[in-house]
């Protein structure tokens, strides 16, 4: 019965993921480039690990991971090539986006790397406190915990 419940909950989680792929209101650069007429003037709300590429006088090239790059028109003050960026930007059917507001996430890489430490710490504490019982197939407290 317990394993059936776990399976049902797992299926529910997968269902939620599928539901999200069908219903999320996010608009990505790829969506816009696939159908420029339909997305002309729309706010792009989903970027995939966006990085500042080459910087020009009137903007920069946005580089994404596993997604198309795109020309961005923006105020270039404070931009640093190679840094992560967050944006509110409007797509134009000519194939570029125009920034409404922008934030350069200068320390995002540090944030990612520093976040690895607590994962190991909590993992270690869990292993020190709990154990898997092979007979009952349950997690239980270690006797010395």
């Amino acid at each position, binding site marked *: 019965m317990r394993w059936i419940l776990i399976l049902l909950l797992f299926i529910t989680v997968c269902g939620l993921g599928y539901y999200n792929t069908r219903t999320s209101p996010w608009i990505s650069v790829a969506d816009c480039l696939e159908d420029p007429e339909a997305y002309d003037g729309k706010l*792009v709300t989903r970027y995939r690990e966006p990085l500042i590429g080459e910087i020009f006088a009137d903007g920069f090239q946005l580089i*994404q991971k596993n997604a198309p790059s795109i020309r961005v028109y923006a105020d270039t003050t404070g931009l640093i090539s190679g840094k992560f960026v967050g944006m509110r930007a409007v797509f134009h059917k000519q194939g570029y986006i125009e920034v409404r507001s922008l934030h350069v996430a200068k320390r995002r890489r540090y944030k990612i790397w520093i976040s690895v430490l607590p994962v190991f710490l909590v993992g270690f504490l869990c292993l020190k406190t709990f154990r898997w019982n092979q007979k009952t197939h349950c997690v239980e*407290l270690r006797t010395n915990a």
Partner: protein
Amino acid sequence: MPDLVTHVALSHLVSRPFEWRHQKKTTVPMRILFYLGTILPDILTRPWYIIYPPTMEWTYPLHTPFGMLIICLMLMLFFKSDLRKKAFLALYSGSLFHFFLDGLQTHLTYTEHWLYPFSWRGFGLHIMWAEDILLLIPVWLFLIVVLEIIMRGRKRIHG
């Protein structure tokens, strides 16, 4: 999201004082599950997104209170029957604390969808950028040291 050091440090600062009066056998283990709950929404979603961003559409529900409810119910079932209720409460309250902290940070394009999948209404207080919260880590560590000195001092006096 704030970094996970901030999540775990603040979860320690809010949970440790509950051991002020008395400590049961399960108090410390449940505090550890509370820590796990506070990092679970990010460790279930972020690594996949960072490695391969298109997975975000699939994993995003795990970074919502409803998605974590399902995950915590599932994890609860792996525990021994007498621990299940407490394990669920510790994990899920940790997750909700995670979403509360995420709700404090500033976003440009989207906010926290606390009512997902029932609504796409965004929540959040937009107080600080996630990178700025990173600078507060020494403060959290200092507060932890102070809290531990107080807790251990009290234990030494009262036994």
